């Protein structure tokens, strides 16, 4: 069936099976492989993307459910090859090691800062509890999100 989406600001049309998961559409059809799959059960958050400005786990969203929506993936977070403050601070604070959880973690953090521009450490830790990281022990991720919040001046 036909599915039309706006991905990272570009209108795209796809012909996909009704059961196609959004994450597979993004990765295999749209070629945006920055969104990762790690648990297929919406527990780990590696597949997090923004759907109409809300962080969703794209491994448990059907592509058809996203019909007509605006999707932002990690590739589209910052325009023109620039870095979003979250990306900058993940780099600065060593908020990643293997990098597999990172795109989802950054987009989850984006939503957290959208809702809470100046979060406390505890709010950050709870805010990313839907995203698993096996490498970092989270501390540098928390530091990165805190630093990004400061850089963004408490507002987006």
């Amino acid at each position: 069936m036909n599915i039309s989406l706006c991905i990272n600001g570009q209108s795209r049309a796809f012909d996909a099976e009704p059961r196609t998961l959004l994450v597979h559409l993004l990765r295999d059809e749209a070629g945006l492989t920055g969104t990762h799959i790690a648990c297929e059960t919406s527990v780990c958050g590696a597949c997090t993307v923004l759907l109409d400005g809300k962080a969703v786990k794209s491994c448990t969203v059907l592509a058809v459910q996203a019909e007509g929506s605006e999707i932002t993936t990690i590739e589209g977070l910052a325009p023109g090859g620039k870095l979003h403050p979250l990306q900058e601070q993940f780099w600065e604070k060593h908020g990643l090691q293997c990098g597999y959880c990172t795109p989802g973690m950054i987009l989850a953090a984006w939503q957290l800062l959208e809702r809470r521009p100046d979060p406390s450490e505890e709010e950050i830790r709870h805010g990313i509890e839907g995203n698993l990281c096996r490498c970092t022990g989270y501390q540098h991720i928390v530091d990165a999100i805190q630093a990004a919040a400061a850089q963004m001046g408490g507002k987006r």
Partner: protein
Amino acid sequence: MASIPEAPKFIGVPIKRRDDPRLIQGRARYVDDFQLPGTLHMAFARSPYGHAAIRGVDLSKARAAPGVVAAYAGADLAGKIGPVPVAGLVPDARVPVQPVLAGGRALFAGEPVAAVVARTRYQARDAADLVEVDYQALDAVVDLEKALAPAAPRVHAQFEDNVAFRWAIAGGDIEAGLRAADVVIKQKIANPRVVPLALEPRGVLAHYLPGEDKMTIWSSTQVPHKLRTLLAQQIGMAENRIRVIAPEVGGGFGSKLNVYREEALAAYVTRELGRPVKWIESRGENFLATIHGRGQLGEAEMGLRRDGTITALRYNVLADCGAYYQLLTVAIFTLTGLMLPGPYKIPHIEMKVTGVFTHKMATDAYRGAGRPEATYILERMLDLAALELGMDPAEIRRKNFPAKAEFPYATSAGLTYDSGDYHAALDKALQKAGYPEMRRQQAEARRQGRCLGVGLSTYVEICGMGPSAALGGQGWESARVRVEPTGKVTVFSGASPHGQGQETSFAQIAADAFGIAVEDVEVIHGDTDVVPYGVGTFGSRGTVVGGSAVVFARDKVRDKMARFAAMRFEADAADIAFAGGKVFVRSAPEKSAPFARIAQMAYDAIQLPPGTEPGLEETHFFEPPNFTFPFGTHVVLVEVDPQTGEVKILRYVAVDDVGNMINPLLVRGQIHGGIAQGAGQALEEEVIYGGGGQPLNATLMHYALPKAHQLPRFELDHTTTPTSVNPLGAKGVGEAGTIGSTPAVVNAVLDALAPFGVHHLDMPLRPEKIWRAVSRARKGGPA
């Protein structure tokens, strides 16, 4: 010996990682991100039973399904693909042959029984569901003790029981040591199975080009060359016609230090069909069919004098091998024996291991790999001993450390620790934690009816794996360094980092010696057609062994470059220095040229220094003369809610000594991650099996990985005791956190429970287990 330059500009500096830009922008490429035209997708039908007879496999419906190109059962592959490779065996180990697809019997839940290849992923998975297997479920061997009962079902009919191997290590005279003790503490201790759970599941993409008779394999692996050699043998293809690429790899923790069935099958099928074949593991498959870690059930006995001096340690242990060995299954358990004396002077030790076949996936290397198990035994036993002797846990540890002056220190397990200062790390950790204050806080909390606990672990680990002879081969690592004609430097490493950050730290190592910027160094790894034959990344060896190889290769090139510069400046090569992007004469600095100019000279080769070939490229294989022995002390403060059994880690203090640090930022990251994993095992993680051998919690919905809000802010510090085993003086850091944290957290929880008379519980210390123990104690029952 080569050495760090006198005034390093980059080594020891917390430079941010050079690989991050691609990772934070979603531009990195993991195996599944490679999309070759015409790729076929592979999926498996796996046994739902822990143990079953396979009376028939009917592939007809699968073959007829849309998009299916091929389907295979075990019988279709007989004689065509060799068994899964095994190494690191001990004498007289019974070695079952692990086929690529199960034949007459399935021996663990998740064992692949049939493979289906189709045009799309969805079609492949659909078709795998259409494979009809006639199973007859059989009794499964799950429990390690029951596995050895005479009436137990046998995992392998060709062996007379479920004993996989027996191995022992002894030093001193264990009986005399126990006789010399005033008290002997005995405790049965389990170290349950856990899953490594790299966030990126395993995956392989194999592409055979019939015209060239060449194959490229992209695999999420820690050991690309090992994979190439072993796969070549398995599928009967010349090794030098296979190229293995480890692209971006999303974590390993030991689980990708292996050669798995699916890799061999993908390689076989692409050659059969002449099209690219991809298999990406699902998380469910990862739980079932990627190696597990730990899996020990033992009985420990520690003898001590009244003053806390350890006289002897005995550990008899059952080792859960699973149904088949993977690459290093057996070897991992022997590492526990080598590590058994830990950081203590224990004159008499003995460990007897009985490897046990069970109807489960194999165990193998998982972060720490045998050494956390030894540390856990020691640290638990010392806490029990301290309790018995009325000593402070810190004091009993201090009492048994070798003094700084006693290094190099030869242990009763036969290793020689080259350097160490265990007192310093303990003192620093206690000071940082405010240990006396922590104890006062605990006493005050107890008066208020709250349960605070303080846990310690002091550890040493065997890292920088390792001397080849001690490892049964291949303990070295390779590096090639090339100065390009334009003055850029390329480092080719045989190590295969997958998140550790050596693209940065190796560049730091190279840049310092050449006096150039880190940005001018490119680090290449993970491609067998490009880098020299390498061993890979595991066992805290990447920097220690791989980085040392870079040092030697780099110095060879630098020495050669100095000869070209000496010729140009009519100076002595020993008087040539490299700094600030220039090559100059140390005693006459006005004689200088840009680094790139000298590099170009070596390639132009219009004039050559005597006995010197053109070009600037050197390779070094670094063979470490010994292991390295990082150590440290971790101090944990927890609060346990006796009403619910919930544990909250209030503080976590870690003082680790990893020798010289190349990049302290990366070191911190490694320790953080290690602590989190170790704490996960202490509190939450365990693979739970039903009686039929099916894992009951084989999803991330049921298997609890530590989350951000469950962990505290880690308070780190370090001492620095360099090793003389390698030119960097670095000792390795990949496993330190995991080794230190598990016992520290468990000890803290049990310290909190001490007022209830609960002195030992097996991991994981989930709320329910704690709540039950407390409830029993309150009712006056046995703890």
